[in-house]
């Protein structure tokens, strides 16, 4: 039973989707229990796998039992790099599923089962992407997540949302095709699709490793993943797609899709090409870090220019992607940058989740889509606003939260790798975040202009029903609890940053190999 956990983890949401297709069309009430059960099973399996990894190290699972020779079947691998990512996916998808109950009901009641089918298939895809060790299988699973997210984004969105969705389809398909092309070049040169097998061949065979085709393969895989993760010049699809789609979709996609793509990039770098080859042989590190710096600065500045809350958060995602890509490419000898990037994947997913939850609640309950609509929201919705403050502080990077520690590791990596421009960009972006969020705090706390225009009537109203607005506007427990859990997790991840980073660092090859090979 225990050795089947990886398969169970991937398959449980898929079976849930099939069950909804079979039984959920007539009676929509069965949908949520099925969704919840399957996600909890997956989460349990993910925690079980992570636990096994801490005890015994890497878990290998061979689909259909084809082990020898390596590469004929499909291998799944859970190691220190992805053990925490699968737990993150489990936690985030389960929390968002609570949030989606009411949201879908309001959206389009007849399509509830189909929403949940897409939702669960997306979860299957995310789990699968994270644990697969087969380059082509990764493509198939990426396509599952892409197709489901096209559907989720286009379903029930506005005019702008539809236009954003078609752009997303075009960009996403080109990205996936570039990835596929890169895998094809690799396959042509190495004759295998298993990531670890490819790495062994590349390391053993100098001629193959240094051929043009392998370099082009790396470039195209990287481009494909960058399109998928909305790395700055290729980010065009993201802001509109995520800000004009239904909130529960945004809550699911915004924290997970880009972060999983960053994870895929790190996985490709470590498990296919090898850090040594990338950092020392290719020496693109400086170029990519400069691109990342541009992404961070551009994302932050664009976020500053936005009036809509969700759009602002979307541009912050673009900036955060810059953090992670830059961090992963810092090539400092102790690999603090890479550890920081991987830690930031976890912490940023939680922060984004928290902020998008709040943005979704605000847009639904008080119809606040722009920053100016938030006047006095702190009084009306204290719990939500408290969580928003926490998420915002994490985004800025204030100590007890995880955002501080991820920036700390990234900056440490930047200093050790000698990438001062990256450090400067990181600090600049934190400053911009602070300006952004304090602007919101100000409006939300004190109001943009004192409520004279509305007259004393409203104030009167507020005075008399002191507690009532809270009960009226504060949403039900189904939405508040996931939000509070997310906020708590942000703090917990921050407090336990040491063990988490140590855990992640076990996945990296011993530093001495890279240090000794440095010129």
């Amino acid at each position, binding site marked *: 039973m225990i050795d089947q956990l990886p398969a169970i983890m991937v398959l449980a949401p898929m079976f849930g989707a099939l069950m909804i297709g079979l039984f959920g069309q007539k009676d929509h009430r069965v949908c949520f229990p099925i969704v919840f059960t399957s996600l909890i099973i997956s989460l349990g399996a993910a925690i079980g796998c992570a636990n096994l990894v801490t005890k015994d190290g890497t878990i290998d699972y061979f689909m259909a039992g084809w082990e020898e020779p390596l590469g004929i079947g499909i291998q799944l691998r859970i190691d220190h790099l992805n053990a925490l990512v699968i737990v993150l996916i489990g936690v985030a998808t389960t929390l968002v599923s609570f949030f989606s109950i009411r949201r879908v009901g309001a959206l389009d009641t007849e399509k509830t089962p189909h929403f949940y089918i897409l939702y669960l298939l997306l979860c299957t895809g995310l789990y699968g992407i994270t644990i697969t060790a087969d380059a*082509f299988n990764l*493509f*198939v699973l990426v*396509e599952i997540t*892409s*197709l489901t997210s*096209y*559907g989720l984004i*286009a379903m029930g969105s506005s*005019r*702008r949302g*539809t*236009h954003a*969705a*078609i752009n997303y*389809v*075009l960009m996403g*398909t*080109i990205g996936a*095709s570039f990835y*596929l*092309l890169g895998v*094809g070049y690799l*396959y*042509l040169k190495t004759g295998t*699709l298993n990531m670890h097998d490819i790495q062994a061949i590349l390391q053993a065979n100098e001629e193959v490793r240094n051929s043009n085709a392998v370099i082009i393969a790396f470039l195209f895989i990287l481009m494909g993943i960058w399109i998928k993760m909305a790395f700055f010049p290729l980010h065009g699809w993201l802001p509109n797609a995520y800000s004009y789609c239904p909130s529960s979709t945004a809550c699911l996609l915004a924290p997970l899709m880009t972060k999983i793509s960053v994870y895929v990039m790190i996985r490709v770098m470590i498990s296919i090409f090898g850090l040594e080859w990338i950092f020392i042989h290719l020496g693109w590190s400086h170029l990519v870090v400069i691109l990342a710096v541009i992404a961070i600065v551009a994302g932050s500045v664009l976020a500053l220019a936005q009036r809509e809350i969700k759009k602002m958060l979307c541009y912050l995602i673009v900036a955060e992607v810059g953090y992670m890509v830059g961090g992963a490419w810092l090539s400092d000898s102790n690999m603090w940058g890479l550890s920081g990037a991987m830690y930031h994947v976890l912490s940023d997913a939680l922060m984004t989740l928290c902020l998008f939850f709040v943005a979704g609640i605000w847009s639904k309950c008080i119809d606040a889509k722009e920053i100016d609509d938030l006047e006095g929201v702190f009084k009306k919705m204290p719990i939500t606003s408290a969580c928003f403050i926490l998420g915002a502080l994490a985004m800025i990077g204030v100590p007890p939260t995880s955002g501080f520690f991820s920036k700390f590791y990234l900056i440490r990596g930047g200093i050790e790798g000698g990438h001062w421009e990256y450090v400067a960009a990181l600090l600049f972006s934190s400053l911009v975040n602070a300006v952004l969020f304090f602007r919101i705090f100000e409006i939300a706390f004190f109001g943009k202009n004192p409520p004279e225009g509305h007259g004393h009537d409203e104030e009167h109203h507020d005075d008399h029903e002191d507690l009532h607005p809270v009960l009226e506007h504060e949403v039900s427990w189904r939405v508040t609890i996931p939000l509070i859990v997310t906020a708590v997790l942000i703090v917990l991840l921050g407090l336990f940053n040491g063990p988490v980073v140590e855990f992640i660092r076990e996945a990296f090859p011993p530093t001495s190999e890279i240090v000794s090979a440095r010129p």
Partner: protein
Amino acid sequence: MSEFFEQTIQPHFNFWIYVILMMLGLWAVIAKKNMIKKLIGLSIFQTAIILFYVSIGVKEDATIPILDHHGPEHHEVVHENGEHIEDAETSAHPEEVHEKKGDHSHGDDHGHDDHATDPDTMANPLPHVLMLTAIVVGVATLGVALAICQMLFKEFGTLEEDEILAELKDSASDD
């Protein structure tokens, strides 16, 4: 002339064409204004990748990757100036396999149960398998994209990107 042809053009011709097709598709996706045209471009882009993969698996003088399990009487391979004209249902004869790759220990007895086949006589099946999947993915993506196009048409009354963008700008200034 023929030597030039064989040495320069022939080895990579397929790969050149795949690049050309792919670039045609990419150009259409970026530069064409009509959504349907963009999607046709996208499909061409994807088929170009499939063409690339299938080209990887091609072996000269090899047949389709289906074993002949009816016994040896079907084997006929005609030799003509080093070129083979194969019957699509046959796999190459074991004798001639030995000529080409002498170091293979198996393949002599082509009986009913022992199907030790020389790998060089058959096209590589793995790219075919991968591309079956890619074709399916392609048609699913095309379907979803066309559905979104129909939604776009419902909302904007046009599928030309510049008109859609102009209308979006108009509605934004109205707000």
